[in-house]
C-alpha cells in the first residue's frame, strides 16, 4: 500500500504495543461515543449522542447549527468530559488512557483552529515527541493542500483557508490513529476542499478512523463512507 506522508501507517498500527500502555481492548475498533449526555451553561446540549467512527472509513457528522457537533467532537479527545455515556478508542475507555497519549492518538482539528506563534513549521513541530523531519513536514503540508514553501512562513499571517490547512497538516503530522475535524472545509474554496477530501479518503484508506462535522451535505456525501446524525443513525438522502 502506498504510504501517505512518507509514513507507513500499517506498521505503525501494528506497532501499537510500543506505546506506554496497551491501548487495544476487546471492544469495537475506532472511536465510539455511546449515549453521551452533556450539559453546558445549565442546558443539556448533548442528549444521548451516539457516534461510531470506524477505522478505514470517513464518517461525516451532520446536524443543525447549535445541535452540539463541536461539543461531541471535543468529547472525543477529552477536552470535554460527558456527564453520562462513554467514549472508547479501539475498545478502551478514553478515561483509561493517559490524556496526552489520547490526544496524540486522536487528532482534533477544531472549528476555530489557532495558529501558535512562530512559523508554519513551528506549528507542525509543536509538541511532537520526536524531531520533525523536513520530509515529514513537506509531506504533511502537501497532504493538506499546501506546498512546502509554506513551512517557513509566519503562521500568524496566513489567510483563513491557509490556516485551516495548516491545522490539518499539524494534526496529520503527529500520526494519529483517529482524525477528528470540525468543519475543515468551511474556509476553503471548492477545489481545495475537494483536495482535502481526497486526502481524508486516502488517510482513511490507510486505516485511520476519520470523522468530520460538516454543513456541506453534497460534500459530505462525496467524501464520506457514512453520513450520520448525532443519534448515530445514517442521514437519509
Amino acid at each position: 500500500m502506498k504510504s501517505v506522508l512518507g509514513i507507513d501507517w500499517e506498521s505503525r498500527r501494528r506497532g501499537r504495543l510500543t506505546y506506554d500502555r496497551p491501548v487495544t481492548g476487546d471492544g469495537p475498533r475506532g472511536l465510539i461515543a455511546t449515549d453521551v449526555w452533556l450539559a453546558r451553561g445549565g442546558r443539556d446540549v448533548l442528549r444521548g449522542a451516539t457516534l461510531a467512527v470506524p477505522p478505514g472509513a470517513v464518517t461525516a457528522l451532520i446536524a443543525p447549527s447549535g445541535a452540539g457537533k463541536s461539543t461531541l467532537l471535543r468529547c472525543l479527545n477529552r477536552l470535554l468530559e460527558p456527564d453520562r455515556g462513554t467514549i472508547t478508542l479501539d475498545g478502551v475507555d478514553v478515561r483509561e488512557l493517559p490524556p496526552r497519549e489520547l490526544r496524540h492518538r486522536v487528532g482534533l482539528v477544531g472549528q476555530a483552529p489557532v495558529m501558535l506563534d512562530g512559523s508554519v513549521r513551528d506549528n507542525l513541530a509543536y509538541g511532537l515527541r520526536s524531531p520533525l523531519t523536513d520530509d515529514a513536514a513537506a509531506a504533511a503540508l502537501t497532504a493538506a493542500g499546501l506546498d512546502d514553501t509554506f513551512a517557513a512562513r509566519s503562521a500568524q499571517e496566513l489567510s483563513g483557508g491557509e490556516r485551516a490547512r495548516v491545522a490539518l497538516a499539524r494534526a496529520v503530522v503527529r500520526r494519529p490513529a483517529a482524525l477528528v475535524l470540525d468543519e475543515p472545509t468551511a474556509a476553503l474554496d471548492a477545489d481545495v476542499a475537494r483536495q482535502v477530501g481526497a486526502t481524508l479518503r486516502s488517510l482513511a484508506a490507510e486505516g485511520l478512523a476519520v470523522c468530520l462535522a460538516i454543513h456541506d451535505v453534497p460534500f459530505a456525501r462525496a467524501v464520506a463512507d457514512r453520513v450520520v446524525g448525532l443519534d448515530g443513525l445514517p442521514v437519509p438522502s
Partner: protein
Amino acid sequence: MSQAVVQVLAAVAFAGFAALLARRLRLGLEREIVWAAARALLQLAVVGALIAAIFRVPALAVLFVAAMVLAAALTSGGRLRAVAGSRRHAAVAIGVPALSATGLLLLVGAFDTTPRAIIPTVGILIGGAMAATTLTGRRLLEGLREQFDAVETRLSLGDDVRTAVRPVVRGAMVTGLVPAIDQTRSVGLVTLPGTFVGLVLGGASPATAARTQLVVLLALLAVELLAALLISTAIVARLTAPGERVVLPDPAPDETGDRRPWPFPWRRRGGPSG
C-alpha cells in the same frame, strides 16, 4: 476652622466632584465612588484610633496585621469570586509574600521591631500584594476566556494544562506587575510614595525617608511578583480538571463592580456566589 476640619471637608469635596463628573459622563460609577470614599473615611478614622491603641499595647499589632491580611483577601478574593475558594487563595497569595518579606526585613534589622515601624510597612506590602493578586487573577480569567481556542489547540496537540495555559499566565503576571514596576521606576519623578511622604510629614530627614522608601519599594517588587505567581498557580490548579482539561468558571454576574464590599460579603445581589 481647624486644619483637621478643612482637611476632611476638602477630601469630601474632591470625592463629590469625582462622583458628579462620573454621573455626568454616565460611567455608572457614582455609587461606587461615593461608597469607596465613605468607606475610606470610616476606615481611616477607625484605623487611626486603633493604631493609637496598638502603640500603647504592642501585642495588638499581631491581631491588626491578621485583620489587614483578611481584609485584603476578602477584597481581592471578591474580585475573583468566579473561582471557587478565591478568598482563601487570595489570603495565601497576599499573606505569604507580604508577611515573609516583613519577617525578613525585621530579621536582618532593617526596621525596628516596634508597631510604629512594622504596621505601616506591612500595610504597604499587603496593599501591593493585594493589587497584584487582583490584577493578575482577573487578567488570567479574562485571558483564558479570550484565548480559550488557543488553549484548546495546545491541549489537543498534547500539552498538559500547565503548558497550555503558560502564555496566558505569563501575560496575566506581566499585567499584574506593571503598576509595581512603573511605581518603582518613576519614584521621585512622578510620585512621592506613601512611606516617604509619611516619614517626611512625620519629621524624619529626607535621607532617612528615601532610604526607607527604597527598601519598601524594592521589597514590593518581590512581594508582588510572588503574589502574582501564587494566585496564578492557585487559579490554574482550580480550573484544571482530571484528564488535562481546563474548565472555565461562569463569569460572576457582577465581576466588575464592587457591589459586595468586604465588610458585608453576605450582601449578595443575585447570581451564584464564588
